[in-house]
């Protein structure tokens, strides 16, 4: 039953009425990675996740978690999987501690083990001083921490968090990501959905989802390169006439050229900025062009995403 993948999603499709929420999606999530499902609201991320957890039945396709088929052996999957839903789903009329105890017992701990585990989690997620407060009276951030604690109660190998940072203030967002990395170090595979592109940079690998389809998959860097066809380098030159760049190793295309008095700013597409930048500068200087500044342009995932979506629209 072992598998090299934590999650295998194969040709997954979900149709609600006439609406295809998820359209023939296939993904392989490796063990031990932080995998991001990225996409705008309504792209089908939550639906995908719910199918991974067996909370809804796929119209087509199947999912395996650590090699276990979800449809057939859901209980086995649940024992090794933790889930934090997008919206708060715990009992508002129970206290923080009571909620945690309930879930510890539901996952099969005996009374003493459950108490110990709850104590651990209360400390780890900084909930100790609020343990007697009703969950309904918690602030948004505390609710999120409690939800995460519940997801982790049975020490799952796979944790799936759906929009953990939606509507959460920046310090807590940072805290969450720090915590995810720490969990990940302990060997936990994490799947996180988000529509915050900047956050997605924290993931080892990503899949971009748009209208139920996967439009890209890979590391953040790979996705950016995929979107633009390479890295972008900005070079500021002092020269009377535009220099020839074509033919220099790694240069694919000059994207922009802007003249201001005696300086020219070039935006150049190269296959790999980190290895090519120095050689490009050297070639220019050997041709008698003075290079004032040369650097790689930072591309946000947002830019990459917009570019990829535009490509899809065509």
């Amino acid at each position: 039953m072992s598998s090299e993948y934590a999650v295998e999603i194969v040709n997954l499709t979900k149709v609600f009425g006439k609406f295809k929420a998820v359209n023939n999606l296939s993904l392989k999530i490796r063990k031990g990675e932080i995998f991001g499902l990225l996409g705008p609201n309504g792209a089908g991320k939550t639906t995908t996740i719910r199918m991974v957890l067996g909370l809804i039945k796929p119209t087509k396709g199947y999912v395996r978690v650590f090699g276990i088929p979800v449809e057939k052996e859901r209980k086995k999957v649940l024992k090794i999987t933790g889930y934090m839903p997008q919206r708060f789903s715990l009992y508002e009329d129970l206290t923080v501690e009571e909620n945690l105890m309930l879930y510890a017992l539901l996952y099969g701990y005996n009374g003493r083990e459950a108490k110990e585990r709850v104590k651990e989690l209360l400390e780890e997620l900084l909930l100790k001083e609020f343990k007697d407060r009703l969950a309904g009276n918690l602030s948004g951030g505390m609710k999120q921490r409690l939800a995460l604690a519940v997801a982790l109660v049975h020490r799952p190998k796979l944790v799936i968090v759906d929009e953990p940072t939606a509507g959460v203030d920046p310090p807590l967002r940072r805290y969450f990501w720090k915590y995810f990395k720490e969990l990940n170090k302990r060997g936990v595979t994490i799947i996180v959905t988000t529509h915050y592109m900047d956050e997605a940079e924290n993931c080892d690998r990503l899949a971009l989802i748009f209208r139920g389809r996967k439009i890209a998959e890979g590391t953040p860097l790979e996705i950016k390169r995929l979107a633009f066809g390479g890295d972008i380098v900005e070079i500021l030159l002092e020269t009377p006439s535009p220099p020839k760049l074509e033919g220099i190793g790694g240069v694919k295309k000059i994207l922009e050229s802007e003249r201001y008095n005696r300086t020219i700013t070039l935006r150049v597409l190269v296959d790999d900025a980190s290895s090519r930048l120095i050689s490009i500068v050297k070639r220019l200087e050997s041709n008698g062009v003075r290079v004032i500044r040369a650097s790689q342009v930072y591309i946000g995932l947002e830019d990459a995403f917009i570019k990829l979506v535009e490509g899809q629209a065509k």
Partner: protein
Amino acid sequence: MILTALIYKDIKQLLRDPKTLVMVLLMPVIVLVMFVAGYGGPGGSIPISVANLDGGSISWQLISELKRASAMGLGSFEIVKTAYTFEEAYESVRKGEVYAAIIIPKGFTEEVFLGEETQVGIILDTSYADISEGVYRLLVLTMQGFQQKVTEKYGGFTFNIYRVTIYGPEVSKIDAFLGVVMSVLLHLVPMSLIAVSISRERERRTFEQLIMTPISSYDIIMGKLLAYMIVTMADTFLTLGLAVYVFKVRVVGSFLDLTIVSFLILICSLSMGLLISVLSKNQLQAYQMAIFAFIPSMLFSGFLVPAELLSPKVKIVSKLLPLYYFLKTFRNIQIRGWTLYDNLFDILMLIGETIVFLLTAIKLLKLRVE
């Protein structure tokens, strides 16, 4: 403009939940149809027995007169049993086979011919005041008509009717009403209480997290059943105790038996409520369905009118209702002083229905959020 916007919005919202809307709008129609079906047509006839200890010609004339009277729709009773001794007739009433027995005395024919005084007896089961009074009136009326006819033919005689009551002398209103009060308390209240329990989890989304744990639908259904049972059980004992020990409602049978049958209907009501809960999408729908489910019980289970007086077609419906079996058993214990064993069939039906409700609920509860 403000008002129209609000009206428009609310009507739209109502139309978006067709299940609830249909239930609300159809409820009066269905209640009316059920009411007419149950009470509109010819009612069911009340079974009686006759013990002809005489065997002479006049006694047979009386029996055929009784038969004719019921056939002509004069009365709604039917001779279903013939007894051969007073004791046998008495037993048939006591066992609940019939509601009344007519005793034609030995020497009846002779006494009529001789114009002497004769004593015809009516043994009455007074545990259901409505039935016993009704059937008594009808029997007396029929026999008085018979007396007139016979007098014309054979000359006058004195016709005395004496009355023997079982489970009497009479049942007071409060005694008769205890079963009804317990029905509301043990059927409608727990049923509607638990009916919203699962839909509430769905509405508040706690269901989504709950079914992420390795539990089964059996766990959820049984967990809810036992939790609500523990909470509502106290209420049952309190009400029964209050009625019997403080308000001195008459209980002929054993208090323990009464408690046990109350407990059985409580579990049955909770199971029925759970099934409703599994079937409904939101809390409003669940409430509506619970009330909806209570209507046939109210009309046909003997809650308002003894089920025996209903038309025969509707009696089939009665026999599907858990409350019918409960009320029957409860009254038999409370007023007639029967034991649980005397009501074995009804109790088995009650338990059987409970099991069916529970198994269906477990089967239909899907651990999904669709």
